[in-house]
C-alpha cells in the first residue's frame, strides 16, 4: 500500500499547543459543576500507630461545612482487597483511605472535610483534632535491610532477576581487575506541577463523571466501579489533560477515593485537590541500596558481573521494579549473578517513577563501569565498545529487534568532542573551575500494550481518531494526528485526535514508554481500514474514475483518492463518504504485541549520554554545562515533541544527580522537605545546552509502525554520566546521589 508520509517523521507543532498557551486546556481540578463542594484532606501526624480519638465538632461547626468524613462514619465500600487493586497495583493489600484507626505512614489521610468553598474546607480541616497512640516508626532502610526478603509474589509486568550465568563469584575472585562498590540514589518524589486532584460531577441517578489526574482513564474507571460497586455505565472518566505524571498518576491516588466517596454519599459534585505538601504522602522512587561487583581482564573485558539490590517497600504492598536485570543485558559477560530483595518500612508504597528501576540500576552499573575504566586505563567509550553485544539479550537468549547503540556512542562522542578529553582526573580547567567530562549508557524496554482505536471520516471530509489513552505532555495528540493525516492524505488541521475519555475505545494507562507504539499502531490500523472502506465507496460511485483500480495503485492526498499513475483521475473523500448509508466511514481496530514474535525477539531503546560539568571547588558547586544525549529508539514520529521528551528526561536526570532528595526524619518517619522550596528540582538557571541526537534505527518488529517509545530513555544513564563527569573533574567518587555540596566537600 503506498502511503506517503508527509507529517510522520517531521517536526510538527503540538496540536494542543493553542489550548495550552491560552489557558484553554482543562486539568482535573478545573472542570466546573453546579453547586460544587470542595473537600480538604486532613493528614495524619504520625507514621505508625492508632487513632484513639478524632474530634470533628469544631470543624463541623464552621458555617459552610457540609460534612466531615473519618474512619468512624465512612460510608461502606467494597470489602475485598481485590476490589481496590488497580491495573498496576503491586501484590499486597492496597491502601484504603479512612478504612480504620490504623496509621501506616506519615501523612496518611485521616479525615475529609467537605464545605461550600475551598477556603472554608481548608480552614475547617485545621480544626479537626486527632489523638493517637503512636508507635515508633521504622523508616531507616539501613536498619531494616537485614530483614530483606525475596518477594514471594511477583509483580505483574516486572521480570524477576534472571538466573545466574556461569560462575560469577569464582570469576570475580579470579579476575585480574576488580571493582566492588555500593551505590545509592536518594528517595525522590515525582512532583508533577499539577497536584493530584479529582472533580466528581454528580450527574444524578447514581451516575458520575470523574475528572481525575490519572495517566489512563480506564484505570480510574475500573477502580471506582470496583470500590464503589457501580456499573461501568454509571462512571465516565474524562481527563483530556494531565499536568505531568512521571508515574505518580499511574495508580489512582487517595483523593480520587475521597472525592467519589463524598459525591456518592452527598449526591453532590465534589472536588478534592491535594496540597503540595500532601504530594509527599504517597508514591516515591524507592531508596535502594545496590552493590555492584565487576571482574575484568586488564584490557577491560568483563569476566564477572554481580549486582545486588535491597529496596524499600511498604508494610502493605510488595512494590517491585526491574532494578538489576539491566546488568545482565547491556554488556557481554559469561558470568553473572543477581539478587533483588525488599525490606519493609513504615512509609507509603513506592511508585513507578520515570524509568523505574533503570534509573537506579543503570546508575550503579554505569558508575561502576567508569571505575573500571579508571582501573584499567581504558577510555570509557572504548571500554563499552569492547564489551558490546550486538544482537542478543543474554538474560533471555532472545534476539534484539534492533540495536543502534554503537551509533549512539560514535555520533554522541563525535558531537561532544569526546576525543579531546584528557583522561586524567582534575586535568581540565576553565578559569578557577574544574571541568569534567563523563559518559554513560542508557537502556529501556520497548513495549507494546493491547490498545484499541477508532477512526472516523465524517461528511465534511474531516477525520477523527480516538482512543481512551492519555497525553501527559508526551505529544500523543500530535503524533496520532500526524499518523491519521498521513494515512488519509489530509492536512493535520483536518484531523482531530480525542483522548482521555473512558467512553472511547479501550487503552491501558500511559506509561512505560509504550503509548506511541501501541496507540499509534491502533490508530494506524483503524485508518487503514477506513482507507479500504472509503476506497470501496469511491470505486462504486456512478462512473467512478477509480472503477478499475485497486488500493495499491491509488494515493490519498489533499482530501482526494487519486490514481497514482494518472492524477487526472480522482474522487474526493467527501463524495465517497456521502454515498455511505451512515454519512460517515468508521473503523475500530485493536493493536496488540505479537506473541509469536515475542518468543524470539525482545526490544529495547538505547542511549549514550555525554556530560560536561564545571565544579567550583571552593564552593563545592557543580553545574552541568553541556549534555549530548544520543538516542536509538526506532522511528521518530515527531522530531519536535520527541526532542522535548528527551530534554525532559535529561533535566530530571540532572535533578536526580545533583538536586533531588526527599529527606526522612527517622524519629517521626516523615519526609521533612515536603515542598518545592526545600525539595529541589532543577530550575531554568540549572540547565545549560542539551543536544539530542536521534540515530537512525530501522526496526520492523518493535512495533508495526517502527516506534519504540521515548518517555523514559532520556533520564536513564544521565545520573551516572554526571557522577562520572564529577569524578573526572574532581577525582572524587561520590556514590550516593544526589551529589550535593556537603558530599563533595566532605570527601
Amino acid at each position, binding site marked *: 500500500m503506498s502511503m506517503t508520509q508527509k507529517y510522520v517523521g517531521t517536526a510538527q507543532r503540538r496540536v494542543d499547543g493553542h489550548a495550552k498557551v491560552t489557558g484553554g486546556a482543562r486539568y482535573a481540578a478545573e472542570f466546573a459543576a453546579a453547586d460544587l463542594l470542595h473537600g480538604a484532606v486532613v493528614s495524619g501526624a504520625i507514621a505508625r500507630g492508632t487513632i484513639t480519638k478524632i474530634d470533628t465538632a469544631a470543624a463541623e461547626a464552621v458555617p459552610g461545612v457540609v460534612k466531615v468524613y473519618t474512619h468512624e462514619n465512612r460510608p461502606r465500600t467494597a470489602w475485598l482487597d481485590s476490589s481496590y487493586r488497580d491495573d498496576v497495583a503491586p501484590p499486597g493489600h492496597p491502601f484504603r483511605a479512612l478504612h480504620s484507626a490504623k496509621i501506616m505512614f506519615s501523612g496518611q489521610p485521616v479525615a475529609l472535610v467537605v464545605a461550600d468553598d475551598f477556603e472554608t474546607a481548608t480552614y475547617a480541616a*485545621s480544626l479537626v483534632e486527632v489523638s493517637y497512640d503512636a508507635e515508633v516508626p521504622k523508616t531507616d532502610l539501613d536498619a531494616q535491610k537485614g530483614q530483606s526478603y525475596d518477594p514471594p509474589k511477583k509483580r505483574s509486568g516486572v521480570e524477576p532477576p534472571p538466573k545466574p550465568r556461569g560462575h560469577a563469584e569464582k570469576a570475580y575472585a579470579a579476575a585480574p581487575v576488580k571493582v566492588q562498590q555500593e551505590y545509592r540514589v536518594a528517595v525522590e518524589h515525582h512532583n508533577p*506541577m499539577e497536584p493530584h486532584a479529582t472533580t466528581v460531577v454528580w450527574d444524578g441517578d447514581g451516575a458520575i463523571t470523574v475528572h481525575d489526574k490519572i495517566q489512563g482513564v480506564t484505570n480510574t474507571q475500573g477502580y471506582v466501579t470496583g470500590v464503589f460497586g457501580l456499573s461501568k455505565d454509571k462512571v465516565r472518566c474524562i481527563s483530556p489533560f494531565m499536568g505531568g*505524571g512521571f508515574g505518580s498518576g499511574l495508580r489512582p491516588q487517595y483523593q480520587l477515593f475521597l472525592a467519589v466517596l463524598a459525591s456518592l454519599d452527598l449526591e453532590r459534585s465534589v472536588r478534592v485537590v491535594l496540597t503540595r505538601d500532601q504530594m509527599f504522602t504517597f508514591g516515591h522512587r524507592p531508596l535502594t541500596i545496590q552493590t555492584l561487583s565487576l571482574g575484568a581482564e586488564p584490557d577491560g573485558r568483563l569476566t564477572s558481573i554481580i549486582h545486588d539490590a535491597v529496596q524499600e517497600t511498604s508494610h502493605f504492598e510488595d512494590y517491585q521494579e526491574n532494578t538489576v536485570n539491566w546488568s545482565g543485558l547491556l554488556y557481554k559477560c559469561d558470568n553473572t549473578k543477581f539478587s533483588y530483595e525488599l525490606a519493609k518500612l513504615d512509609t507509603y508504597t513506592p511508585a513507578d517513577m520515570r524509568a523505574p528501576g533503570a534509573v537506579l540500576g543503570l546508575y550503579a552499573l554505569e558508575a561502576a563501569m567508569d571505575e573500571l575504566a579508571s582501573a584499567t586505563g581504558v577510555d570509557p567509550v572504548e571500554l563499552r565498545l569492547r564489551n558490546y553485544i550486538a544482537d542478543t539479550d543474554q538474560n533471555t537468549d532472545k534476539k534484539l529487534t534492533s540495536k543502534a547503540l554503537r551509533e549512539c556512542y560514535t555520533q554522541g562522542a563525535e558531537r561532544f568532542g569526546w576525543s579531546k578529553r584528557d583522561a586524567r582526573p582534575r586535568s581540565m580547567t576553565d578559569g578557577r573551575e574544574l571541568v569534567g567530562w563523563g559518559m554513560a549508557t542508557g537502556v529501556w524496554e520497548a513495549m507494546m500494550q493491547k490498545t484499541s482505536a477508532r477512526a472516523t471520516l465524517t461528511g465534511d471530509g474531516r477525520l477523527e481518531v480516538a482512543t481512551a489513552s492519555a497525553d501527559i505532555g508526551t505529544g500523543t495528540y500530535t503524533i496520532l494526528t500526524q499518523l491519521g493525516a498521513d494515512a488519509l492524505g489530509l492536512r493535520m488541521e483536518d484531523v482531530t485526535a480525542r483522548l482521555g475519555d473512558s467512553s472511547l475505545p479501550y487503552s491501558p494507562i500511559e506509561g512505560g514508554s509504550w503509548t506511541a507504539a501501541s496507540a499509534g499502531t491502533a490508530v494506524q490500523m483503524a485508518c487503514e481500514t477506513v482507507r479500504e472502506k472509503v476506497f470501496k465507496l469511491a470505486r462504486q460511485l456512478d462512473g467512478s474514475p477509480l472503477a478499475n483500480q485497486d488500493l495499491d495503485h491509488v494515493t490519498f492526498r489533499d482530501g482526494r483518492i487519486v490514481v497514482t499513475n494518472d492524477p487526472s483521475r480522482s474522487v474526493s473523500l467527501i463524495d465517497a463518504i456521502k454515498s455511505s448509508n451512515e454519512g460517515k466511514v468508521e473503523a475500530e481496530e485493536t493493536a496488540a504485541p505479537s506473541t509469536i514474535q515475542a518468543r524470539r525477539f525482545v526490544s529495547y531503546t538505547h542511549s549514550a549520554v555525554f556530560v560536561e560539568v564545571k565544579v567550583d571547588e571552593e564552593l563545592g558547586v557543580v553545574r552541568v554545562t553541556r549534555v549530548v544525549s544520543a538516542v536509538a529508539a526506532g522511528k521518530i514520529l515527531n522530531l519536535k515533541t520527541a526532542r522535548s521528551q528527551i530534554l525532559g528526561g535529561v533535566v530530571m536526570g540532572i535533578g536526580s544527580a545533583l538536586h533531588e532528595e526527599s529527606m526522612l526524619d527517622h524519629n517521626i518517619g516523615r519526609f521533612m522537605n515536603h515542598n518545592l522550596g526545600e525539595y529541589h528540582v532543577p530550575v531554568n538557571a540549572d540547565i545549560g545546552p542539551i543536544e539530542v541526537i536521534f540515530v537512525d534505527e530501522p526496526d520492523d518488529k518493535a512495533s508495526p509502525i517502527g516506534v519504540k517509545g521515548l518517555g523514559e530513555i532520556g533520564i536513564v544513564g544521565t545520573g551516572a554520566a554526571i557522577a562520572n563527569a564529577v569524578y573526572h573533574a574532581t577525582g572524587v567518587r561520590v556514590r550516593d546521589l544526589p551529589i550535593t555540596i556537603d558530599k563533595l566537600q566532605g570527601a
Partner: protein
Amino acid sequence: MMDGMSSSPAPHPVGMAKIPVSFRLNGAPTTIELAPWTTLLDALRNHMGLTGTKKGCDHGQCGACTVLVDGQRINACLTLAVMKEGADIRTVEGLAEHGHLHPVQDAFIEYDAFQCGYCTPGQICSAVGLIAEGHAHSAEEIREAMSGNICRCGAYPNIVEAVKHVIDAKAARRLEAAK
C-alpha cells in the same frame, strides 16, 4: 493536621463577610464579592472561572500562578484578591488580542516550550513581564530571570529559546524603526 504538613490555619473566619472588590481583569472592569481570605489565585480559578492560571504549590515556590498585575509579574497565590482594588490584572486568558496569539504564546508553541502545559500559563505571563522589565537579553540572563517558574517537564532549553526569540525580534524591530 500534622505540623507543617498543610497550610497553616487561617485566622478564625466565622462571621467573615464577603466584601466587594473591583479591578480590571483582562481589560474588562470587574467587581466581585469575596471573603478577605481568598487569594487572587483562588479568586480567579474558583470564583471567576478563569482556570488558565495554575496552582502548583500555593506557597510562592513554583511560579505556576504567575499573573501580571499593573504589568508586573507576581505570584497570585501569595496575594489576597481584596488587596487588588483598582489594579489592572492580566492572566493567560487575556494575552491574545483580536484572536491573535501574543508573540510569546506563539513562540512557546513554535519552540515546543512545554509538554504537559501546566506550568505554561505562568511561564508565559512571567516571560511577558520579564520582557517588559527589559533587563534580560542573553540566554544566561533569561535563564536566571525565568528561574522562579518551575517546569517539571524540563522544557527549560525551549523556554529560553522561545523567550529569546521574542526579545531578539523586538530588538530587531526597534533597530529597523530607528533606521
